[in-house]
């Protein structure tokens, strides 16, 4: 219908495939997100550790540059599983901050403005809505976590040779899976909080609280009962253990605590073991299942008053 005609006309053109429609949400969300100069600045800062990582990898293979800077190659950190794990952990921190910036208003804004009926009265399901909202975070967080890390892994493989690549291909899997687990968890948690809390500031606070309060509680249990079971309620500890497990650096024996007498005599030794790796995975799965159940409960066109 042309503007000058000013009459109601049906649409007869082609339609987009149904499977691709959930991607409409992130496309429109990024327009708003990248309108903020503050966010663009933060997004650029997220790449600084990756730049350092790239420089370290490059220097390790450029003896000319090392000689010019009078650095012995042995003084540089070896590029191995621990190297990549360290930088993956740093990027996870940035991913958390980004989730804190973008995640909370995603669903809460729609709930506050009763926008869900508008989405769901179209050929667009609740699952597609949640997938669309989650992919806003998943795509952005992927850009600062596993995608550049994987590029750097390939860069290292290129410089080191095929033999190194073959010997360390498990690192690539660890980078991708650890990052995906983390960003998926962040996306689910921030969506769930966003669906439960209508106000952005409160939702951001709740997301921080969700990481902080159980960690403090876990640490308290660990100290009082001389155990590491408390780590099962700490999201930070869970993801740390899972990441270490994927990079092959997980060690259950974390600490040997010595109980001493007043004169310093060792009365007994308490060996502190991290909870088994499977229990950390199980807790993460449980948390994701709870988040999905809450999302399924909250993401509805209308709440039914029974």
């Amino acid at each position, binding site marked *: 219908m042309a503007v000058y005609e000013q009459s109601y006309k049906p649409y007869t053109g082609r339609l987009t495939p149904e499977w691709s429609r959930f991607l409409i949400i992130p496309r429109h969300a990024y327009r708003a997100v990248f309108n903020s100069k503050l966010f663009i600045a933060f997004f650029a800062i997220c790449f600084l550790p990756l730049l350092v990582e790239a420089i370290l990898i490059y220097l390790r293979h450029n003896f000319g540059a090392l000689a010019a800077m009078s650095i012995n190659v042995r003084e540089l950190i070896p590029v191995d599983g621990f190297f990549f794990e360290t930088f993956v952990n740093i990027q996870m921190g940035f991913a958390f901050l980004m989730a804190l910036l973008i995640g909370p208003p995603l669903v809460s804004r729609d709930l506050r403005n009763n926008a869900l009926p508008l989405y769901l009265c179209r*050929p667009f399901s609740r699952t597609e809505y949640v997938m669309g909202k989650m992919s806003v975070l998943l795509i952005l967080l992927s850009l600062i976590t596993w995608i550049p890390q994987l590029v750097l892994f390939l860069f290292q493989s290129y410089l080191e040779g095929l033999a190194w690549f073959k010997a360390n291909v498990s690192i690539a899997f660890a980078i991708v899976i650890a990052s995906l687990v983390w960003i998926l968890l962040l996306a689910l948690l921030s969506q769930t909080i966003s669906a439960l809390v209508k106000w952005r500031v409160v939702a951001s606070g709740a997301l921080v609280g969700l990481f902080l309060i159980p960690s403090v509680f876990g640490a308290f249990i660990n100290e009082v009962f001389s155990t590491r079971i408390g780590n099962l309620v700490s999201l930070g500890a869970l993801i740390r253990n899972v990441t270490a497990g994927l990079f092959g650096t997980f060690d259950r024996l974390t600490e040997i605590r010595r109980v001493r007498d007043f004169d310093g005599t060792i009365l007994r030794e308490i060996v502190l073991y991290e909870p088994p790796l499977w229990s950390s995975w199980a807790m993460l799965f449980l948390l994701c299942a709870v988040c999905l159940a809450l999302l399924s409960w909250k993401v509805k066109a209308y709440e039914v008053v029974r």
Partner: protein
Amino acid sequence: MSMALPATAHDEAIKTQTTYDEPAVVDLHGLSVTFGRRPILKNLRGDLRGKAIGLLGPNGAGKTTLIHTLLGFHEPSAGTAQIFGHDIVHDANAIKSLIGYMPERDSFIAKMSAVHFVRLMGELSGLPSEAALERAHEALFYVGLGEARYRKLETYSLGMKQLAKLAQAIVHGPRLIFLDEPTNGLDPPARLRMIKLIRDIRDSGQANIVLSSHLLLDVEECCDEILILRDGQIAVYCNLEEERKSNRKFLMLETRGDQKRFVEALARLGCEYAITNPTRMKVVLQDGVEVRDLYRLAAQEQVQLRRLSYKRDSLEDIFLKAMENGHGGL
């Protein structure tokens, strides 16, 4: 030799609704909806075929629940319904691509201009990005928001928000449009504009309309069929024009004096009557009874007839009758 009169849009509309080859706009098959243990819709049956169907009923009658169930927001507890032959439970996506919905409450996506909002809604309905943008502009011009289309929705007045909601409901050119209280909170000029738009869409013949409203005048001005709900059941479903035609003419009398004796005398004459207040009554004359008989009767009973006028049932009368009688059925 008979001369055919030119058909009006309204005649065409009635002709369309009596063509039963096409599937009904909405076909109700014992549709029931229960929230917890509370039944909201009870065994609704019938096929609605009007170009513009008015959904009437007092608050809590189930109008909005019926619309929401047809949109797939609530699952039927028993029975089902079809829209253009598609089952609301099994073909929900097929139905959703055929319909547009204007919700009753304020519903927006925050921090968006109207054109961005309507474009997004178009894209979610399956339109490619460029086509959605083009139609968003057109829809906003069509509803009269052309000049304000780049403004943020938060800055819109209530009337403008209603128009933006209408624009998002029609951007993808649906075959059936659900309008839930579209004139809520509008001032008279804005209401007239909304009514004009609804009538224009109806008369275009390109889309059917289901209009839910508690304002009888809105329904009377826009709709050719009405469905009156009461306590979750169908109280009346009728074609408004046919109902008006079939209604007998009645007399509206204003009297002074002993009304009781007068109505007893009317009953003896075989006339039906309804007392609306102590001085007014409706009287349906039996065959063979003339107005002069009423004057004679009034003189006999020493009752003054202050006013006497012929009337037909208005929508208000149909509605009130439905509320009194209960089931009109289909």
